[in-house]
């Protein structure tokens, strides 16, 4: 039996049609992700990296090719591929607890008793250090906290693959660093398979096992895939002067700013 990766994006094309004009966004994307691996996708804005994530999530249909999870084709969205959206997408009329509960109640309606579901919600809020704010509404907590709750909601679905769509993009630098540390700790603890979209080079190098670099659109492709051979757990401060870290960082920067620098018209 041939081996196959845990998540496989297989020769995927994506184009959008508006009227008679067809725009090709992604061209022939093939990528395999192993179980427990942390993979980042980096590229200039407009290169279609969010589109790629939406294809994996099933929120958009592929134009050609397919997405395979455990060798099963996935077409529809589902809780096995939980998404943490860029702008948190918490439901503002629900409390923090209820926002996680809506996911837990749906996913584990048969598998867990009411008591177990409550414990599971609290467990996940603990994991992102948000248990103290469980009765607050999204409007009453900070942007970083909202993103933590969004992460708790995604983790609570026990997804096979965790999809992060620029999860820290809208946060200030300090809060972002804090959340990155939390995500690293959770990844170490739970061993999730993660696919993350980012435009931050440091973030990509710090968090990822592999960095997928996209060329500019239209018809963006995978330009290069970089292995990040850094030991885990990784420490932000220790890595700041680390030779391997700097080399990886250099490679990504060269790709983004020399070979595929941002073209305004793209």
């Amino acid at each position, binding site marked *: 039996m041939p081996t196959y990766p845990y998540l496989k994006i297989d020769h995927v094309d994506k184009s959008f049609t508006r009227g008679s004009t067809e725009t090709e966004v992604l061209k022939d994307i093939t990528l395999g992700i192993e179980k427990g691996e942390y993979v980042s996708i980096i590229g200039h804005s407009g290169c279609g990296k969010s589109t790629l994530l939406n294809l994996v*999530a099933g929120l958009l249909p592929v134009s050609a090719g397919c997405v395979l999870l455990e060798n099963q084709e996935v077409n529809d969205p*589902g809780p096995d591929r939980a*998404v943490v959206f860029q702008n948190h997408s918490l*439901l*503002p*009329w629900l409390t923090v607890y209820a926002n996680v509960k809506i996911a837990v109640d*749906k996913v584990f309606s048969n598998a867990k008793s009411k008591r177990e579901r409550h414990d599971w919600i609290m467990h996940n809020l603990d994991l992102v250090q948000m248990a103290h704010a469980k009765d607050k509404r999204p409007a009453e907590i900070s942007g970083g906290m909202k993103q933590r709750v969004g992460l708790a909601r995604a983790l609570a*679905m026990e997804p096979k693959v965790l999809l992060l769509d620029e999860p820290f993009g809208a946060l200030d630098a300090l809060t972002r660093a804090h959340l990155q540390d939390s995500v690293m700790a959770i990844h170490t603890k739970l061993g999730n398979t993660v696919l993350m979209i980012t435009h931050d080079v440091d973030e990509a190098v710090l968090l990822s096992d592999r960095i997928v670099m996209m060329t500019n659109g239209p018809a963006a492709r995978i330009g290069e895939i970089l292995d990040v051979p850094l030991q885990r757990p990784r420490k932000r401060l220790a890595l700041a002067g680390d030779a391997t870290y700097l080399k990886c960082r250099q490679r990504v920067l060269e790709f983004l700013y020399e070979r595929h620098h941002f073209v305004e018209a793209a």
Partner: protein
Amino acid sequence: MNMPLVKTEPATVTPAATAMVLALPPKRRALATRTAMVLGKVAERVVPPVVVIAVALLIWELLCRRAGSTLPPPSRVLSDTWELIIDPFFDRGGLDKGLFWHLSASLQRVAFGYVLASFVGVALGTLVGQSTWAMRGLDPIFQVLRTVPPLAWLPLSLAAFRNSEPSAIFVIFITAIWPIIINTAVGIRNIPQDYRNVAKVLRLNQFEFFYKIMVPAAAPYIFTGLRIGIGLSWLAIVAAEMLIGGVGIGFFIWDAWNSSHISEIILALIYVGLVGFILDRIVAGVASVVTRGTSAN
């Protein structure tokens, strides 16, 4: 218009209290100044409307006092209708009832028609907001029908129901439903794609999506429609009752006109205004409780 009767008191009390405050010994001054400040704040709100109403009443009184004026001055209105004001609950059978009974009959019709319009309106609005096909099919019809004046429906509904009571309720229904439909549809169409994506990832079914995402997300819009709807219902009922007769504030006004009781008309108008105001505040109050958190993001 009978507001000054209620509100003159705090206004006259305010200066009196402030004067007392100054006379107090210095030790209790902290508390005293605080009280004065609170009273001052209240006065800021209460004094302007009281002054404006007092001036308006004065002008009205002066204009209508002279001999041969067609409308009674406020003092005449008060003395003419004093019996109606102090006893709104009398019932001498037939149409000779206190104003409370007339208002309650009107409110009942509004309640029936409006509740019906709320349910049907939200349901149709959801359909139009959710389905492009339904929108294309129904929206032109709605846009044309909503411009038909409420009373224009009355002859048709009388012909259909052959009874005044359901006809009045139908007029309320058809008046209130358009803003509810249109606002609900806009609310549903404006649900952020993020919330829809969350629902998709969670694989919520249609029913769960409706009551867990759609209704709360569109609630501020729905309540805007409901608030416009209650206002229009109350506008329409008075006009409709003038035509259909029977117990009701609209017919009371018409009846007063036919018997040349102008003062009674004025009193009834004041009541109609106050009840409309209260209805609006009730719906607004319910809205602020239900939609708390929804609009804040």
